[in-house]
């Protein structure tokens, strides 16, 4: 089994498009996304209108890509959008896929 990183990003739905472009930019070969609701320092985000909806993005990448991604998120996106991001360890079977 190969050790990789799962980076999870939870952000406002309007930021989805630029974020997926960032993912491509740092070298991710795929991603998964779904609508979520949430609550945080910027107040409740009920998902009934797109203006206050959140999206959760999940991307599996090699550890060094995870670091680049998190750093760019912190520098470029955190100051602009309400969001959080975190990394965790995952194991996959197919190498070469990520």
């Amino acid at each position: 089994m190969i050790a990789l990183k799962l980076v999870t990003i939870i952000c406002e739905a309007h930021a989805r498009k630029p974020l997926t472009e960032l993912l491509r930019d740092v070298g991710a070969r795929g991603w998964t996304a779904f609508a979520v609701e949430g609550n945080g320092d910027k107040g409740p985000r009920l998902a009934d209108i797109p203006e206050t909806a959140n999206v959760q993005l999940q991307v599996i990448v090699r550890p060094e890509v995870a670091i680049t991604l998190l750093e760019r998120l912190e520098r470029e996106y955190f100051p602009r959008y309400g969001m959080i991001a975190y990394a965790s360890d995952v194991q996959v079977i197919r190498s070469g896929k990520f």
Partner: protein
Amino acid sequence: MELFDAVRANLLSPAVLFFALGVLAAVVKSDLRFPEQLYAGLTIYLLVAIGFKGGVAFADAGFAEVWLPAAAAIALGALIPLWSYPILRFWGRMSVVDSAAIAAHYGSVSAVTFIAATNYLTAVGQPFESYASAFLAVMESPAILVGVLLGKRAVPKSGLPALTGSSRQVLHEALFGRSVVLLVGALVVGGLSGAGGMAKVEAFFVTPFQGVLALFLLEMGLVAGRRLGELRKVGVFLLGFGVLMPLVHGFIGVVLGHWTGLSLGGATLLGVLAASASYIAAPAAIRLSLPEANPTLSLTAALAITFPFNLTLGIPYCLAVARWLYTP
């Protein structure tokens, strides 16, 4: 007196009452919520229906009749941010990006306010040009582009690294954003299929329309009501701005409609468009292209101040202005 009666009739229409019910439900913290995809579906329905109807009317009226007021509508949309911006920046002491973002919202338009106004005119028996939804369609984007230009100057100074491709994106969003495509597209479809096409789809796009709007306004009330708590955050200045600008813009819109040859009802609608603030197209485009702006300010102003104001008082006000202007 007459204005008072008009306002009362408006306040007791199912649409406005359902809006009030939604606000109330949010205030008492009911767990009532519309599923998000229902909201999206209702939005699509309303935009397509109003666009289609406008397109059929457009084809009927002909381009010669429509182009002048349409050009005026575009110009008005593009100009509103130019005076809104300094007001926000200097009287309101807001940052460059926030001023630009709010100015863009107020130059752009609210489809639901427009639709509510057409229903109101129908209810009070005031005829209007059905092709007026063409103005709605063309007024969405110009203000957004102007607002983004105003705001973009500030970003380099902020010290933040630029986001890739965001200026390309704003143009794309302004031209091909969801609501623009639905409105302009349905307009063209309506124009091409004409009265024969209308006969086929009328029972879906026209007959139940007012009822759908009433249900939709219940959800709008929930959404607006939930933001009432943020009124404190946005401050007194923005509250005043959100109520006074519609009065000014509504007046200018009606006058412009008069000048460019619209009927009394059509001028009212142009006034309502000018008075309204976008809370669908503008937020999406601005979050993409001016993410440095604080969305709480613009969204709360557009959704929790100006929208309810127009829905209840702004629409009758525009009609009153038009009646006064058109009185010989």
